[in-house]
């Protein structure tokens, strides 16, 4: 029986030191540490995220979902007047395992009332330089990245042009999909590897179809989702939004995701009415971000496999 940890004791000490540094960073800025439930009554509607479900137990009236992120509960705290909050939380995503994914992982998530996504990107850069030392920092819009690196405008290029660009370089067999599938493929297979040569790179203002929970605004005459991602040496580390606060639009987006689930033969999910009620009561204007803490520790310790930074990875837990 292989009972021993996957990570070295030095790595576990580095994890403890990283957590301490993060807590000091937020304490110094007056951001409150909070905890919210891991088991939630509703699961996310996002068709590309599958929660794990807990189905049996005397305390359970109905099945509960292990959280895929603490986002909804934290937004309820914000609507209740918490002010800026952060959380170090376990999150779970079914079927996500590999050298950069473990189905159970740790997120550092925080929310900043009064910030937009540009303010929050700067704060993420400050936290990362505290953890990783000084790195060159770049801010690049999603649109500019595609135009500079691939010669394609991701907001106007047709499905066929995106597919043709992907097939030029990649063997994808009979792969079929919508524009977003091809954009995701180009981003993850062609652009991410190019970001490996850069230090810290923020990519922001995504196509509205990929806005997720970010508000949509107009930039240079096109609608963009005010979402950002940060890559450090090509490793995707965090995803943030200038948060959507409009309850009606949030309900529409949930319903649209459920429609996509139905089209793909997946079960629809009941909406998180508690979140929608909190938005109706009023979510302060804020930006929020979720950062993969295990991946940050990979960068701190210089390892390439997430299993090496977990005391017990999925196969050993």
């Amino acid at each position: 029986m292989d009972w021993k940890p996957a990570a070295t004791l030095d790595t576990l000490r580095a994890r403890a030191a990283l957590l301490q540094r993060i807590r000091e960073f937020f304490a110094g800025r007056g951001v409150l540490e909070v905890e919210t439930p891991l088991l939630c009554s509703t699961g996310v509607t996002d068709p590309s995220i599958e929660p794990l479900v807990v189905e049996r137990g005397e305390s359970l009236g109905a099945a509960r979902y292990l959280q895929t992120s603490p986002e909804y509960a934290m937004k309820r705290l914000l609507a209740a007047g918490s002010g800026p909050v952060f959380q170090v939380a376990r999150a779970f995503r079914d079927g996500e395992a590999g050298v950069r994914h473990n189905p159970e992982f740790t997120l550092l998530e925080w929310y900043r009332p009064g910030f937009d996504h540009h303010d929050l990107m700067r704060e993420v850069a400050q936290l990362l330089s505290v953890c990783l030392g000084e790195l060159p920092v770049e801010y690049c819009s999603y649109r500019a990245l595609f135009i500079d690196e691939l010669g394609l405008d991701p907001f106007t290029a047709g499905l066929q042009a995106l597919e043709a660009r992907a097939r030029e370089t990649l063997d994808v067999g009979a792969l079929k999909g919508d524009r977003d599938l091809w954009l995701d493929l180009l981003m993850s297979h062609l652009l991410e590897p190019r970001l490996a040569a850069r230090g810290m790179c923020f990519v922001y203002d995504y196509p509205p179809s990929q806005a997720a929970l970010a508000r949509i605004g107009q930039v240079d005459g096109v609608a963009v989702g005010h979402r950002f991602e940060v890559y450090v040496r090509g490793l995707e580390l965090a995803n943030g939004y200038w948060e959507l606060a409009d309850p009606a639009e949030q309900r529409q987006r949930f319903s649209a995701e459920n429609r996509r689930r139905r089209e793909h033969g997946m079960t629809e999910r009941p909406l998180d009415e508690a979140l929608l009620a909190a938005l109706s009561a009023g979510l302060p204007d804020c930006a929020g971000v979720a950062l993969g803490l295990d991946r940050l520790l990979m960068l701190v310790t210089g390892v390439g496999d997430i299993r090496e930074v977990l005391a017990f990875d999925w196969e050993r837990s």
Partner: protein
Amino acid sequence: MANYSTNEFRAGLKVMLDGEPCSILDNEFVKPGKGQAFNRVKLRNLNTGRVWERTFKSGESLEGADVMDRTMEYLYTDGEFWFFMEPDTFEQYQADAKAVGDAHLWLKEQEKCEVTLYNGSPLSVAPPNFVELEIVETDPGLKGDTAQGGSKPAKLSTGAVVKVPLFLSEGEIIRVDTRTGEYQGRASKS
């Protein structure tokens, strides 16, 4: 054959891709923070030996290939086919030149090797990593030249030609790494 989903792809799994039997070398799960998950898979085409890199949508599946690796004893060749025997069942298999490939340079009678069967017929043959073979042809050995670094070609009983130190002569048995074709040393007399 069973179907395997991308999350079951492991190194060594044999699957059919575009009608060709393949062995999976590597399976990388790729997922942007939000959006579609992919599996970037490296496979070796077992017919051609070519390495393929194919991206799948996560959750897609491939049919398993009826491919098995068996340890067999090499018997002999009649010039056209090479004959192998499964030691437990004494069942014999004949492999053609395409299946045997460069392995013929290292096949010694009664030696065990790995034969890959596809739909019951040999698809490829892998010799042991190290074999001991006799030198049948080389320039005369130079006595007392053991310290010098020079080398010369030597033809082995199987027809393979390897570089050996100058002091070796015909009739001697040497140990060779079949993966690199490099001389490893004189075989200990048994």
